[in-house]
């Protein structure tokens, strides 16, 4: 039979009379948990931001016509050479168009797939930007602007102007910020676009685009699909790329394979395109958890130390409790409950401090060229971190309290009483 009221009362009295040591031990946990919450919120926030940087812009599956040599050369088809070894030197890709054949039915088909959030067409082509006497080579991509905004957060990368401005203007262009700087152009100015085949098309700058990656911003611009088709002198079904966004990113690999087989097109999934990005995320998470766990272990040693000291100081009390009829288990529970009280109080304060600190960091301005949409440091407010934090506080204080309390349980009262 355990009389919790008596045990907790003794534990409480011990803690209150040794308030300084109690506070030191609790503060150890507080700082450990507080630092864990702050660190993990900040690090995962940063991770999430870096992931988004890639995930938002990159289609889950990118479908296009690859220029590559045919795998089956004509000689392979000739039945008389079937059982011979044929060597063909200097194979070159055959002259073919970049356009995707039958593009509109393919897009319709993909959009009907329940796993696909959206499949949208693009036209990519090389052009020259001309303003006054300056000519700069670059790429222009024809897009369906409103769908890009919806599926790929395109609005985040338009630093001047609005997506609607492009939609409403047949001759509008979203100029890359690097090009705009080099040519001293701004919203409202005109820029001439010259495709490789010749001709010059004047377009009005309705916005400035900035991805944060200088190599892209120096050459890339966006306009409507129809505008590019007109520049190239192609029909309305001339589409070079399809970008697919899925509901579940993990389905990208099988679906990409299926599309390749079904339509004889090149379909690149996001994992293949950005293999290094997954590795980076994993390692950053690993570092975050390694540092957090170290902090909590240090806090645990603090508690262990202080409880050990407390037990040495309370030898007489332990002996007298045992002599008057408290069992070893009762004594152990007294010290365990002290450890757990320290853990709960320290841990809860730690959660509070972590909450305050992470919110403070969330308010700190953080502006960088590379990330036009970020204004403050990114913080991931995930309630699970708080659950993990308090659980770890309880586990570490339990372990830190267990060893000293077991020692208290085993103390022989006769030795203490006779020792004096």
């Amino acid at each position, binding site marked *: 039979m355990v009389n919790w009221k008596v045990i907790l009362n003794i534990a409480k009295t011990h803690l209150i*009379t040794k308030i300084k040591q109690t506070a030191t031990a609790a503060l150890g946990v507080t700082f450990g948990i507080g630092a864990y919450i702050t660190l993990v919120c900040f690090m995962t926030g940063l991770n999430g931001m870096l992931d988004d940087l890639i995930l938002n812009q990159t289609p889950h599956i990118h479908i296009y016509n690859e220029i590559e040599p045919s795998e089956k050369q004509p000689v392979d088809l000739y039945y008389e050479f079937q059982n011979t070894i044929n060597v063909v030197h200097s194979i070159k890709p055959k002259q073919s168009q970049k356009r995707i054949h039958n593009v509109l039915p393919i897009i319709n088909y993909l959009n009907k797939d329940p796993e696909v959030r959206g499949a949208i067409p693009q036209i990519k082509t090389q052009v020259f930007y001309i303003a006054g006497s300056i000519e700069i080579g670059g790429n222009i991509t024809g897009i369906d602007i409103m769908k890009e905004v919806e599926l790929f957060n395109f609005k985040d990368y338009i630093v001047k102007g609005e997506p609607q401005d492009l939609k409403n203007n047949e001759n509008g262009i979203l100029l890359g910020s690097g090009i705009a700087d080099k040519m001293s152009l701004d919203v409202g100015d005109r820029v001439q676009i010259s495709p490789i085949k010749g001709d010059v098309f004047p377009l009005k700058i309705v916005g400035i685009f900035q991805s944060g990656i200088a190599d892209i911003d120096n050459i890339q611009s966006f306009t409507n699909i129809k505008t590019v088709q007109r520049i190239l002198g192609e029909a309305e079904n001339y589409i070079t790329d399809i970008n697919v966004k899925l509901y579940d990113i993990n389905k990208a690999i099988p679906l990409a394979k299926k599309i390749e087989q079904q339509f004889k097109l090149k379909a690149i999934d996001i994992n293949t395109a950005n293999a290094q990005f997954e590795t980076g995320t994993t390692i950053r998470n690993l570092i975050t958890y390694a540092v957090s766990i170290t902090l909590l272990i240090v806090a645990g040693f603090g508690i262990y130390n202080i409880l050990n000291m407390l037990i040495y100081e309370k030898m007489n009390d332990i002996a007298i*409790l045992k*002599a008057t*009829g*408290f069992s070893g288990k009762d004594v152990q529970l007294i010290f365990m409950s002290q450890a757990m009280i320290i853990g709960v109080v320290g841990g809860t304060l730690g959660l509070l401090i972590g909450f305050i600190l992470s919110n403070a960091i969330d308010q700190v301005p953080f502006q960088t060229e590379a990330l036009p949409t970020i204004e403050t440091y990114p913080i991931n407010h995930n309630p699970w971190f708080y659950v993990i934090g308090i659980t770890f506080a309880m586990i570490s204080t339990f372990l830190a309290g267990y060893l000293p309390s077991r020692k208290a349980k085993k103390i022989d009262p*006769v030795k203490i009483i006779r020792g004096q």
Partner: protein
Amino acid sequence: MMETVLEAKMINKYFKKPVLFHVLKDISFKVREGEFASIMGKSGCGKSTLLYILSTMDTDYEGELYLNNELITGQEREHLSYIRNKHIGFVFQFHYLLSEFSVLENVMLPAKKLGEKTLQEIEHDAIEKLRVLEIDHLAKKRASRVSGGEKQRVAIARALINNPSIIMGDEPTGNLDSYNSDNVFNIFKQLSDEQGLSLLVVTHDLDFANKTDRIIEMGDGRILE
């Protein structure tokens, strides 16, 4: 003839460190209800060792020990704790109060552990015991703030709180001046005479021992008759 409260049968004890040493040799004796017995002997004759075996705190011995005709030897530690709590009261040479608790809380603690009475009843009992010992005015004071003689009386009150079968004392007056010693003796005597309480006190104060009902004299680990 009075009931036997405590009985020791052929108790033998060895110290194994630093060298094997036979401390207690074939100790057998009885303490009857209402008897006030003292154990006398020179330092090192094993009288304290015997007391701690009788108190159930030391379980490393040979022989048999009975309390209220119930065999104590070989019981579970949990049960021994319960027996100490309910049937045995302790008074030590050094007062051994929990210094951070008030006098009243110190007295109440064993009863709270026993948990047979409500908190109000326990508090009432504790104040009653303190009143008997004429220290009820100290009830709310912290145990570390009262004098040595008062501490010893608090310890006696604590020993009495669960109405034990026997009170054991290890040199309870050893650390007190003659005034306080007499005081403690008178309290013991009164408890023995008026309430029929059994007492077993280890002492080497001859004056104290001479006033008790019976002296058990020990030498070299044996009872000298």
